[in-house]
Every structure is written in structure tokens, then in C-alpha cells.
């Protein structure tokens, strides 16, 4: 009785396997949910600073200047210039930092107006006048500066000074300091972006100045109804950030969501939009970029016209557009500039290239190591003949070449331009040829790796290319364990991940997975403009008509 019962029990190894099948996904999900909750905890903010009731400036110049001096005790490039207004005895001072403020502007439009021009204007009548100039009078009649701001707090003043503005202080005033916009920017002229090059289309890209970038956006068209909201990010180093959207197209809830997520960033220094991208994206564990970053003006404009929101940051030419869907990463602005037939064909080619760059080596491994019967006989014979001397299994062989290629790519990136080309020749031709000659890898393998590499270059967005490169290695390991079955499993895994992924409320593989046939006109094919009459439905835009 007992023995019959025992004979139905699975043996130890089966039980172990069953345990592992349950335990591994469970532990992984636990780990992930823990990391997720930890990041969410951090995002809860308590940012309520107590404002002291005591004013920082009292209107006495000596006292106020002392406060500024003590605040910037260690800065040697702080420049304080005190003077008398016109011919009067009334004292005034300007405070600015050397270098980052526009000295020319200060000399000609601030100092000259306050001293020389004022003196000339009121030469006779005001010479002995005892009534002091009011700040209001000076602003309205004397100072010929465009950007003017009043500040009452020392902390505000200090940030403005550090950004290159000039503080104007007046004796016998009402405790208000005027900040005059004298910021000098070191900018690069707007040229063609080097990371995204087109044959046809505008040669204009963003540069590092947010001022220039918003200008570029505004310049695009007259009646665009473009709204640019400015925000500040960074706790220690504050930077200007702008959210741009088209008021009568973009979904309001989307704009609010973007704003809310950006306000939640509590980083002390935001150096690039890359920081923002990582801090506001939906799933930080996914290999796929969920936010598009681009240097191209036309890409941003077209995204805005589809009802997306652009995020610009001072100091970087890369502009983020949200929400991003997977098909955006495989599209190029050129698809629209050329006629629709070449546009469609090139786009289909790019989808194919994306597939090859992800699954090329893994298919090679599974055919060579598992499914030799699926190769045509003559090809199988020639492959077998070329592989006779190769000492490694196909996975190791592919890994060697793929890793060599990745190193080569990374090395070529770092080198100065003229040497970069040499690296390509040395690495690609010499190492490839020598590796075959030495019998470490087979010639067909080199072809597969080369085709894969070329395919990955055909993807217009660099970060999408990286994602597919990472996935390629995972696919290779799957293929090495289970063959074609493993590749299919990996593909299904990828599909289930992609269909779960959401970018700012929009499903990542949007026109495909929540099935919207209307949006397919601009998905794999690029339909003629006569057919694309509406904006993408997935964006839930206020105004849907693109063309009547």
C-alpha cells in the first residue's frame, strides 16, 4: 500500500525542478517590486521651506552690499561697482560676476545711462536736487535693458547673479534689488546634428542653449499655437527646463503628467536630458528607450504636431519627446520628405534590419547547432566544410566575434575622426580575415556578424540600436540552449514585455498591440499624404484633423 503510494511520488530531481520553476520567477518578481517601491518612496517629496519674515535688504546700500559680500565671501570674481547717479550724491551699485555677464552691455547700457546720460539730462535742474531718484523712475526713464526683474531675497539674488545677471542696488530705496538681464551665453551655432544625418531635409539641429532651442521651435511657423512652459530642475545646480506643446492639439492630462513627473525630480544636478529621461520613464528595467531623444528640429516639430510633448533642457542639444512608441524609433523624418513609395520601402527595410540585428546570430546558432536539417543540403555541406577546423561551438564563436565587434564600435567612437576610419579597416578587415585564416571562426560566421552589424546601423535612433544589441546577446544565449525553440520563446518573451510597456499612458507598441487600423497608415508603411488625414488616434489629441 505504502509502496504503491510512494511509486506515484515524483523523484527528487523532478521536485527540485518544480521548485525552481516556481521559486525563480517569484524571487525575481519580489526583487523587482522591492526596487520599484524603493524608487517610488524616494519620489514622495517634502519640500516645504520656511520663509523667514525678516527682509534681506533694507534699502541702505552699505548694509545691503555687506550682505551680498558676506554671502559671496569666497568668490573672487564677484565684481561690485559703486558709483553716484548722475551729478547727484545718491549712491548706487551694480554687482555682477566677471566673465559670465555681458561686460559690453553693462558698460554701455547700465553704467553709461546711470552716470553719463543721467548727468547730461539733468545737468542744471537736478544738480543740487536733494530728492533722491526712485527705483521706478530709473527703470522707466534711464535703464535701457530689456530683461528686468525685482528680487527681495538674497537667495534669489544669488542664483540670478550666478546665471550672469547684474544686480542693481540703490541707496535710499525700498529694499528691492533689481536684476538686469545681462547674461552672456557661450553657444555653438545651430548646425546639422552629427548623430542623425539625412540626405534630404532641413540641416538644422538644436544646440546647447535653451534660448536658441526655443527660438528654433518658435521660428518653425507662425500660427502654431506653441506653448512653452518654463520650469526649474535641480536642487543644488538649478537649470532651466522647458516643456513645449501645441496648445490646441496636445492632451491636457498628458501635459499635466509630464509637468508632475518633472517636478518630482529631486536630483541635485541635472546635467543632460538623459538624466530626466531616466528619472521620468515608466519602466526603468526595460531595455527599450521609452522616451525619444533627438537633436533634430524637424523630429520634435512633427512629434508636437502629433500631440506629443517636448522637454528641452538648458545645456544640451538633446530634446525629449513623450510619449514614445516603438515605431517612432524606427522612423526617420526622411520617410516623409521623400515620396511615399520609397518612404514605405525604406521603412519596411528598416523593420527587417531591426529583426536581423536582433535575431541574426541567434538564428545562425540554432541552425548550425540544432536544426541542420532545415538548411538546404548544398549550403549545409559548405557550412560544415568551412567549420571543420573551428575548435569552438557556434555560441562561443559568435560571442567572440560579436564582442570583438562591439569593442571595435566602442573604440571607433572614442577615437578622433581621422583615426576612426583606420580602426574600421584594421578591425573589420584585418581581424575578420585573420580570424578566419587562423581557424578561430568560420567565414560564414563573419558574414553573419557583419550583416548583423550593418543592420544595426540602419536603425535611425542610436538608443534603439543599443537596445536591440543588448537583446541580440540574450537571444543568442536562448538559441544556444534551446535552438529555434528558444529563439521563439525569446521572441514571445519580448512580445509580452513590449505589450506590457507603457510610455506616458500610451502603449509602447501602440498601433499594433491595442489594434488601431487607422494609425497603421503611418506604421510599417507610410501612406500617401492624401490618406493620412487624421492625427494618430493613440495620442488622444484635441484636434484630430491633419488635412481636409
Amino acid at each position, binding site marked *: 500500500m505504502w509502496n504503491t503510494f510512494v511509486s506515484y511520488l515524483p523523484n527528487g530531481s523532478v521536485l527540485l525542478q518544480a521548485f*525552481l520553476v516556481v*521559486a*525563480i520567477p517569484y*524571487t*525575481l518578481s*519580489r*526583487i523587482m517590486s*522591492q526596487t520599484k517601491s524603493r524608487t517610488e518612496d524616494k519620489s514622495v517629496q517634502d519640500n516645504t521651506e520656511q520663509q523667514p519674515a525678516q527682509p534681506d535688504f533694507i534699502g541702505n546700500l552699505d548694509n545691503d552690499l555687506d550682505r551680498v559680500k558676506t554671502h559671496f565671501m569666497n568668490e573672487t570674481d564677484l565684481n561690485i561697482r559703486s558709483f553716484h547717479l548722475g551729478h547727484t550724491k545718491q549712491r548706487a551699485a551694480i554687482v555682477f560676476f566677471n566673465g559670465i555677464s555681458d561686460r559690453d552691455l553693462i558698460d554701455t547700457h547700465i553704467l553709461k545711462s546711470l552716470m553719463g546720460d543721467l548727468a547730461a539730462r539733468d545737468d542744471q535742474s537736478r544738480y543740487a536736487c536733494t530728492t533722491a531718484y526712485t527705483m521706478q523712475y530709473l527703470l522707466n526713464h534711464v535703464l535701457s535693458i530689456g530683461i528686468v526683474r525685482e528680487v527681495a531675497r538674497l537667495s534669489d539674488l544669488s542664483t540670478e547673479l550666478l546665471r550672469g545677471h547684474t544686480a542693481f542696488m540703490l541707496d535710499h530705496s525700498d529694499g528691492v534689488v533689481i536684476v538686469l538681464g545681462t547674461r552672456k551665453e557661450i553657444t555653438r551655432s545651430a548646425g546639422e546634428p552629427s548623430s542623425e544625418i539625412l540626405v534630404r531635409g532641413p540641416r538644422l539641429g538644436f544646440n546647447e542653449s535653451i534660448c536658441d532651442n526655443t527660438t528654433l521651435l518658435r521660428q518653425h511657423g507662425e500660427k502654431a499655437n506653441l506653448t512653452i512652459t518654463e520650469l526649474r530642475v535641480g536642487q543644488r545646480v538649478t537649470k532651466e527646463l522647458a516643456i513645449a506643446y501645441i496648445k490646441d492639439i496636445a492632451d491636457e492630462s498628458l501635459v499635466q503628467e509630464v509637468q508632475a513627473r518633472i517636478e518630482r525630480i529631486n536630483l541635485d544636478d541635472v546635467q543632460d536630458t538623459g538624466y530626466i529621461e531616466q528619472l521620468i520613464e515608466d519602466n526603468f528595467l526595460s531595455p527599450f528607450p521609452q522616451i525619444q531623444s533627438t537633436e533634430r528640429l524637424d523630429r520634435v516639430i512633427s512629434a508636437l504636431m502629433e500631440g506629443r510633448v517636448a522637454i528641452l533642457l538648458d545645456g544640451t542639444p538633446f530634446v525629449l519627446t513623450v510619449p514614445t512608441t516603438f515605431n517612432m524609433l524606427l522612423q526617420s523624418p526622411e520617410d516623409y520628405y521623400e515620396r511615399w513609395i520609397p518612404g514605405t520601402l525604406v521603412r519596411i527595410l528598416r523593420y527587417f534590419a531591426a529583426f536581423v540585428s536582433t535575431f541574426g546570430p541567434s538564428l545562425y546558432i540554432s541552425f*548550425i*547547432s*540544432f536544426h*541542420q*536539417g532545415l*538548411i538546404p*543540403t*548544398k549550403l*549545409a*555541406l*559548405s*557550412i*560544415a*566544410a*568551412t*567549420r*571543420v*577546423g*573551428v575548435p569552438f*561551438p*557556434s*555560441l562561443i564563436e559568435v560571442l567572440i566575434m560579436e564582442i570583438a565587434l562591439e569593442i571595435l564600435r566602442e573604440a571607433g567612437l572614442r577615437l578622433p575622426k581621422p583615426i576612426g576610419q583606420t580602426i574600421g579597416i584594421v578591425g573589420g578587415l584585418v581581424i575578420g580575415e585573420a580570424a578566419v585564416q587562423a581557424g578561430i571562426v568560420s*567565414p560564414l560566421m563573419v558574414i553573419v556578424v557583419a550583416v548583423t552589424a550593418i543592420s544595426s546601423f540602419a536603425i535611425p535612433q542610436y538608443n534603439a540600436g543599443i537596445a536591440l544589441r543588448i537583446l541580440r546577446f540574450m537571444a543568442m*544565449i536562448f538559441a*544556444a*540552449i534551446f*535552438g529555434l525553440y528558444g529563439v521563439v520563446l525569446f521572441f514571445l518573451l519580448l512580445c509580452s514585455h513590449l505589450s506590457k510597456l507603457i510610455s506616458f499612458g500610451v502603449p509602447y507598441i501602440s498601433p499594433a498591440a491595442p489594434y488601431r487600423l487607422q494609425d497603421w497608415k503611418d506604421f510599417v508603411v507610410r501612406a500617401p499624404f492624401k490618406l493620412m488625414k487624421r492625427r494618430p488616434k493613440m495620442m488622444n489629441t484635441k484636434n484630430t484633423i491633419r488635412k481636409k
Partner: protein
Amino acid sequence: MIRQWQSWRVTWIGGMLVILILLTGCWSRKEIEDLGITIGAAVDLGKETQLEQDFERKGGGYTKRNALTLTYQMVQLSQSDGGAGRAGEKKYRNISVTSDSLYEATREIALMNDRPIFGQHYKVIVISDEVARKYNMQLLFDFFIREQEFRPSCLVLICKGEARNALDMKDKSDFPSMRLLSITDNQYRSSRILPPMSLSKLLPEINSSSSFLLQNIITADGEVKFAGAAVIYGKTGKLIGFLSEEDLESINWMTAKVKGGVLKSYDSRSGKSILYEITSMKSRIRPHLEGKRVSFDIVIESEGRLGEQWATGDDFDNQFIKRIEEETIKQIRHRIDKMLHRVQKEYRADAIGLSEYVRIYYPRAWQTIKKDWDDSFAEATIRYQVKVNVKEFGTTSINVHE
């Protein structure tokens, strides 16, 4: 702090588990160069090779009755260049093993060769006529069909004489198995080739125990030729005889399985030969059933061109073209009569495959007559009509009477 440490431990253990599972290795992985890619097989009556006799003298061997000799054609991989070996170098290797069981013989090769047989690239299986006469096809192909590593598109051929000779070739730089397969592609040039019979097509024929034809090949001096067909009798599943090349051609005409070919006839006036080239051939087969008696009405229609003539007739003369048509019809009728006599009276086996038409037209009656179909076929009346249309005479400008 403690919580953090715990989560690290969990991560660590999880990672270890993943690595341990992945490191168990890649199962069922076998690199392509480690396989003995086999492209052909031949089955002969048991006769041990010199090598086997030597092995046995030295103590190798096991209990066996030496019923069959199985020959495998394996590819010799040469590293020099992609498959194409140096001139004169043999690209293949034939291994013969004698045993009672084909499976055992196959596994015997694993004892003598570092690359065991890999059967997913089989191109041909050649059966010697002696084996086919002695063994039922169902038993003979049991192994090839049952085996998981087989290719259903593999071609089945009968060879008169030693089948293993068909897997040899004078020119060593090519594969004999591939050559046999490629010859079947020449159907558009000759009507004396049977439509290729693959393993997957053979299976239903065997299971329904109907008679069928297999392409026959003959060998001489390291060369092969497709010569006629072997008739497999349905009830016994054994070979009962051969059809000549001309008989095979007649069957192809009748079933319209012709993609091209030529037909020679003799001009009745001059006695010189005329060549008619078939460009298309159609046939309508209509069976009739009266009680147990079966009869067929067959209409064969062909279109073609005048390919060659030695009769010095005028190509532009419609009377002459008419005469050619008539001569061709006469020739076809003569040949079909000969063929019908052979299959109906001599072999009494439905090698033409007419049973298919009866089954389709009379599905209920077929259930009762299928058991003795070959006998019914032998008694059946076959009426046929031949229409030939010479549409053109090619590029010629010779007008003999000028």
C-alpha cells in the same frame, strides 16, 4: 540596513540559481561539422564486404544472419574550400554494413566512424531489384519511415543489380546521390522519367496496398541511366517485373504526366523518321462501372511542334503536317497498345494508377472492388482516343520544292 542586506542576499541567490540552470549546458546541441551528413542510402541482399570479413576475422561481430547490406553515402568534408574538393579528390565515402536489421546496421556505423549517420539530408534511397523481389515494401521501408531523422522528400529508386553501384560515380568530384536527384528534374526534356516518388508519396501507396511504379535505374562502368520502371504489385508489396522505357513513356502519355519530350515515328511513304516534340499533353480519363465490370474512356490530346524530319516533306504544306500528325497518332496508339497488353495481360497490375479515377467517380462501389482491384483492372476495357496537333515547325526556311 538589515533589509537592504536581505534583499542583496535574495538577489545573489536568485542570480546563482539562474546561472546554475544556464550552466547545465545546451541539450541536444550538435554542431554541424560533427555530424555525418548522409545524402544517400542503398539496400542490397546481404553480402559482407572485404572490410567486414577482415573485422570478423579479428573478432569483431555479433549474432546476425546477414540478410541485407546497407550502404550509406556520407559526405567527406574537406577544409580546403567551401565544399568543392580538389580535383580528383573523392568528396564522398560509401560505407557498407551487413546485418538483418537496417537500424542495427545504421548504429553499427557509430562503432567505426567518428561522425554517426545524420539522416536529415537524405536525397535518395536505392533498392536493389533482388531485395525488392524478396521483401515486402512495407517491411523494407519500415525503418526509413519510422526513424525520426528522416527526410520525407527523399527519392526512392529501384536499381537493377547491385544498388550500391548506383551510389558510385566515375567523376569523384560530385555527389552521386545529388546526380540521381537532379536527373528527375529533367522531366521537361524527356517523357521517359517517372514523376519522382518520394518517401512521403510512397507511404500511402504502400498502406493502401495498391500497385505502383518506381523509377528504375541501371548502372554500368560507374555511370547510371534512368531506364524504365519497376512494377510493385499491391497485394504482395513486392517487385514483379519491369516496364521498358517505351512502356513507361506510354504510361506518362496516358496519365499526361509529361512536361516535354520527343516522339519518333516513321513516315509511311518514305520510311524516314519524323520527330514530334511534345509541348503539352492533356488527358481526360472517365471510368465506367457496370456491375463488376470496369471500363475506361480516355482522351489524350497533345500539342507540339515538328522537331526534325528526314522525310524531305514541305514544312509549309498543310497536307504534310497532317501526315505527320497521323503518323504520330499511329505511333502513340501502337505503343499504348503494347503497354496495355503488358500491364493488363502480363503483370495484371494497375501500374497506370487508374484506380484513383474509379475511387473518385464511384466512391461507394470502390469500397467493394478495391480488394481485388488489380484483377478487375486486368479485365477492364480501355478505350482511348488520341489527338495530336502540330502547331508549328520551329525556325526553318528550307522549302524543299523550290
